[in-house]
Structures are given as structure tokens and as C-alpha cells.
């Protein structure tokens, strides 16, 4: 067998094993809308944790972070800072959000905006922004699989066909098993990923340089400027770092899938405890950085930095090991991608089309529409993946510039009684349109600052200013004053449960 055949066989076996675990988890259950999207709400603490962890570790951290360490250098360190600080933000925002969600039966980011501000158009707009931002995140994962397969096949499989294969598998997988499969497959994926990160991060510097210390010493001698900011870039200095870390750390839990998983927690206290422990999860990423920096010296001159780490793995280890790493990487891309695609499709059908355009739809019709959307979104992400040449990290930053625009509405909605619908809607429109304009016209970074951060500042300013100018809100779901007798929102009228009646 040729090395390419060996590595591809092992990748296929690992993906097949993962998918089988998923199918088995999904089998023997009646697939209605509820079961398909939220696992019938029967997830224990362990499954919820697995689901959340499955969302955190994506191809972005695997190939993207090492790729940027290779091509950009110092600025990549923002990844370690933002993932850690995101949990600090979550400590102060999620418990309050959860409490509000419990009282008013919220399930998604659209429910939050619909119920808190009492306007289904705001909810619809939030939905649309969420879906649009998830597309580059899915594209990122598909591109990752494309890279893995083309490197592992020694260039035998082109990147475009590899991405197409990935999308077909992804859609089939999401169709057949829904969210329960995704949680179980995370077990396989996370174990492999952490093992792979440790192996690569320690073994590569050790084999080529005699250790991590000597590797960095060699790099500090040869390319000291690569290790600090702005590294190999001209416009990603300290101002960029601070603005990007702020943007992405507040944006982290604004991703629709992460926002939704908040509501699955057992209590507000669980979320706080989670925030205390989760930063340690970021430590494993440091090993990926070791490999990324090592590849600067080992495979200089690659045009596409995202290829760097896998190329080094291919040059260092036997083909079967490349297969194991590739398989872990492929699952690491496909698990989150299916969560994202499922979230986006459900948001589209359940929170955008039904409440805003077709109130008469039955649950079955919504489920059908969601399935159609899975295919549509998969194809859109595939087309974007084939025709765009963005690096993995810049794809993620594009999404962040968008989802972070939810943050003012969320944090003001939780903590500021004076905030009004006009303020939040105006702020979000200003923020999203500014971010979209700056990103699409390639003006990121602007004046040395992250474009998404500038949009976020504008969003806050508009939201605050307009709120002060408009009348005191007749609040629908204000933190301390719950509306009695059911509230009208994105999901239609939700009657309050007896246990959730306001305690005032």
C-alpha cells in the first residue's frame, strides 16, 4: 500500500467509527422536531458537557491556530487570551441569562430578543444575523476537512472534491441522527483530539530540535520578530490584539449554538462552576501552538499556513499516524459543523419563517423545512469554501464580528432597566451593518483596531443613546418584573409555567 492509501484508509476508518457511534445513538428513537434538535430535552449533565466541549474544540483550534502561528506569528496569541476571558465574561452574564430564560421559557437567541424586548422582528433579525454568521463557521470546518484529505492523500485528492465529500457526509449524518448523535460522537472526537494535540505538540519539537525549549530558542535566534506582535503582519499590533480579544471574548457565548446550550444547564450555579473550570481546557491549545511555531523552521515558505502543521506531521511520522491525526482532525471538523448547521437550520425554520412569515405551520412542516435548510446551508458553505481563499482564522473573525453584535442587547437587557427596544434594535442594525461593510470591503483592521470591535462600540453607543432618548419601556420580560399571563414572542405565546410565576 502506498503511504497515501494507508493514511486515507485510517482516516476513513476513524470517521466511519465516529459516524457509527452517532447512528447507533440516534437509532430506535422516533425523530420528531424536539428529539432531532434538542434531544427531547433529556440530556444529563454529562451529555450537555460533551455537547458544549464538542462545540469549543473545532478545526479552528486544530489547524487554524497552528496555521496562524505559522503564517502570522505573535498575533495568534490572541486565541489563548480570548478563549480564557470568554469564560470570565460568561461568569457574569450566563447565570443571569439562564434565570431569565427559565422564567420565560427561552430556548434560543431569537427567543431572548423576542421575549425580552417583545418584538418578533427584532427576534427575526437576530435569527438572520445568527444564521449568516454560522455559515462562515461551517465553511471553516469544511475547508479544514478539505485540507486534511488533500494533505493526507499527498495531493491525490483535490481540495474541492474533498470538501464535497465532507458536505455529503455531514448532511447524511445530521439527517440520520440529530443532536444526540453529535453529543456521543464528541466522546470519540475529544479523546482523539487531546491525544493528537499532546503527541504533536511534544513529539515534533522533540524529534526535530530535542525539546520544546531548544525549538523556541532556535526560533528566537532565527526569527525573533515572529514570536511577538505584529509578527509577520503589518497591522496586527497591540491595539489590534486588545480590540480583537475584547470582541471575541464577549462574542464567544453569543454564537447561537452556545447561547442555546446555556438554557440546557440544570441551574445558574452549574454555569458559574463551569466558568471556573473551563479556562483550564484552553491549556491543551498551547500544545497546538508549539507545533505551529515549530513548523515555521521546519517547512518554511508554504503559501497556505493552514497546511503547515499537517505537512510537518506528514514529514515527521509514518503514514498510519498521519491517518490517526487526520481522522481526529476530520471528526473535529464534522462534529461542530453538524451542530452549527443544525442550529442554523432550526433557527431558520422555527424562529424566522414560522413566527414572521407563516404562523400556521405545523411542527412537522417546520421539521421538513429545517431538513431542507440543512442541505441548502451545506451547499452554500461548500460553494463559499471552494471559491474563497480566506484563512481559517479570518473566517472565524468574520463570524465573530457579526455575532458579537448581540452582546449589547444581551448585557443591557440583563442589567439595565432603562434599555428600550428602539435602542437595542437601532444599535444592532448599526453594529451589524458597520461590521458587514468593513469586513466585506476588506477594511479590517481599521486604524489598527479590529473592525468588529469598532462596530461593537458603535452598537453600544447607539443602543445606550437611543434608549435614553426613547420612552421608558413597557417591558415584556424585564429581569425583575415578569409579565403575568403569558408573553408574546418569537415562538408565539408562551404561557408561564406555574412554578415560574413572578415572585414579586
Amino acid at each position, binding site marked *: 500500500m502506498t503511504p497515501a492509501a494507508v493514511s486515507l484508509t485510517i482516516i476513513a476508518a476513524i470517521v466511519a467509527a465516529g459516524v457509527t457511534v452517532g447512528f447507533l445513538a440516534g437509532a430506535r428513537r422516533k425523530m420528531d422536531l424536539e428529539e432531532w434538535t434538542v434531544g427531547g430535552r433529556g440530556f444529563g449533565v454529562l451529555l450537555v458537557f460533551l455537547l458544549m466541549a464538542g462545540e469549543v474544540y473545532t478545526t479552528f483550534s486544530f489547524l487554524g491556530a497552528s496555521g496562524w502561528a505559522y503564517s502570522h506569528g505573535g498575533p495568534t*496569541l490572541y486565541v*489563548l487570551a480570548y478563549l480564557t476571558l470568554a469564560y470570565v465574561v460568561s461568569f457574569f452574564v450566563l447565570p443571569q441569562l439562564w434565570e431569565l430564560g427559565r422564567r420565560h421559557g427561552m430556548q434560543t437567541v431569537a427567543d431572548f430578543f423576542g421575549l425580552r424586548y417583545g418584538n418578533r422582528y427584532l427576534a427575526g433579525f437576530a435569527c438572520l444575523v445568527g444564521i449568516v454568521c454560522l455559515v462562515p463557521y461551517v465553511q471553516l470546518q469544511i475547508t479544514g476537512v478539505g485540507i486534511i484529505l488533500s494533505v493526507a492523500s499527498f495531493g491525490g485528492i483535490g481540495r474541492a472534491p474533498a470538501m464535497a465529500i465532507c458536505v455529503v457526509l455531514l448532511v447524511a449524518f445530521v439527517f440520520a441522527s440529530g443532536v444526540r448523535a453529535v453529543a456521543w460522537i464528541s466522546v470519540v472526537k475529544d479523546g482523539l483530539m487531546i491525544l493528537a494535540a499532546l503527541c504533536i505538540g511534544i513529539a515534533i519539537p522533540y524529534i526535530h530540535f530535542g525539546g520544546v525549549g531548544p525549538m523556541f530558542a532556535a526560533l528566537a535566534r532565527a526569527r525573533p520578530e515572529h514570536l511577538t506582535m505584529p509578527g509577520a503582519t503589518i497591522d496586527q499590533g497591540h491595539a489590534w490584539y486588545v480590540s480583537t480579544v475584547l470582541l471575541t471574548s464577549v462574542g464567544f457565548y453569543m454564537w447561537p449554538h452556545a447561547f442555546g446550550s446555556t438554557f440546557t444547564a440544570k441551574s445558574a450555579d452549574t454555569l458559574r462552576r463551569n466558568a471556573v*473550570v473551563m*479556562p*483550564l481546557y484552553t491549556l491543551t491549545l498551547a500544545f497546538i501552538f508549539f507545533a505551529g511555531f515549530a513548523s515555521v523552521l521546519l517547512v518554511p515558505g508554504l503559501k497556505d499556513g493552514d497546511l503547515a502543521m499537517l505537512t510537518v506531521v506528514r514529514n515527521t511520522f509514518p503514514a498510519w499516524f498521519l491517518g490517526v491525526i487526520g481522522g481526529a482532525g476530520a471528526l473535529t471538523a464534522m462534529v461542530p459543523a453538524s451542530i452549527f448547521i443544525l442550529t442554523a437550520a432550526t433557527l431558520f425554520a422555527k424562529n424566522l419563517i414560522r413566527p414572521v412569515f407563516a404562523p400556521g405551520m405545523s411542527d412537522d412542516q417546520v421539521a421538513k423545512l429545517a431538513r431542507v435548510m440543512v442541505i441548502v446551508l451545506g451547499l452554500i458553505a461548500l460553494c463559499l469554501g471552494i471559491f474563497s481563499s480566506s484563512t481559517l482564522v479570518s473566517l472565524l473573525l468574520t463570524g465573530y464580528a457579526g455575532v458579537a453584535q448581540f452582546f449589547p442587547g444581551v448585557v443591557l437587557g440583563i442589567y439595565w432597566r432603562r434599555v428600550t427596544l428602539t435602542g437595542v434594535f437601532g444599535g444592532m442594525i448599526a453594529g451589524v451593518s458597520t461590521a458587514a461593510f468593513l469586513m466585506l470591503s476588506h477594511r479590517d483592521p481599521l486604524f489598527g483596531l479590529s473592525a468588529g470591535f469598532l462596530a461593537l462600540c458603535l452598537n453600544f453607543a447607539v443602543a445606550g443613546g437611543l434608549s435614553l432618548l426613547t420612552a421608558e419601556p413597557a417591558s415584556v420580560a424585564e429581569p425583575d418584573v415578569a409579565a403575568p399571563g403569558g408573553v408574546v414572542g418569537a415562538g408565539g405565546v408562551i404561557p408561564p409555567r406555574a412554578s415560574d410565576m413572578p415572585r414579586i
Partner: protein
Amino acid sequence: MRKPSRSALFLGLIPFVGMCFSVPLWDRVRPMLFGLPFNLFWLICWIVLTTACLWAAYRVESAIDEQRGSTP
């Protein structure tokens, strides 16, 4: 649900100062510690320190919750 206390918010601000706002002070290669460039070493330390800060904030918040009785 009540707002977080000032001391908890202060504890939450510490990691932001350590990992984010103070970047010009620590973004350099030397001195290399444990074989790592100084900025990488600094961030790895702060990942652990962040957990410590949040743990302290958790204790503060839980103590206040207990004082006020179990109702939030």
C-alpha cells in the same frame, strides 16, 4: 437574579488586565522561561490564574447568596 457583587466584578477584571490590556508590558521573547518565549509563558500562567480568580469570585458570590438565604 441579583447583579454580581463589586468584589466579584473586580476579581473578574483582573484576568482582563493580565491577559489583555497589559499586552505592551509582556509581549516580548526574552527572558525565556521554561524554554518558552515570555509572552507565551505569561499567557499560559494567566490561564491558570484566571481559574483562580474565578474560583475566588465564585466563593464571594456563593457567600452572598447564602447570607441572603437561598432565594436569589
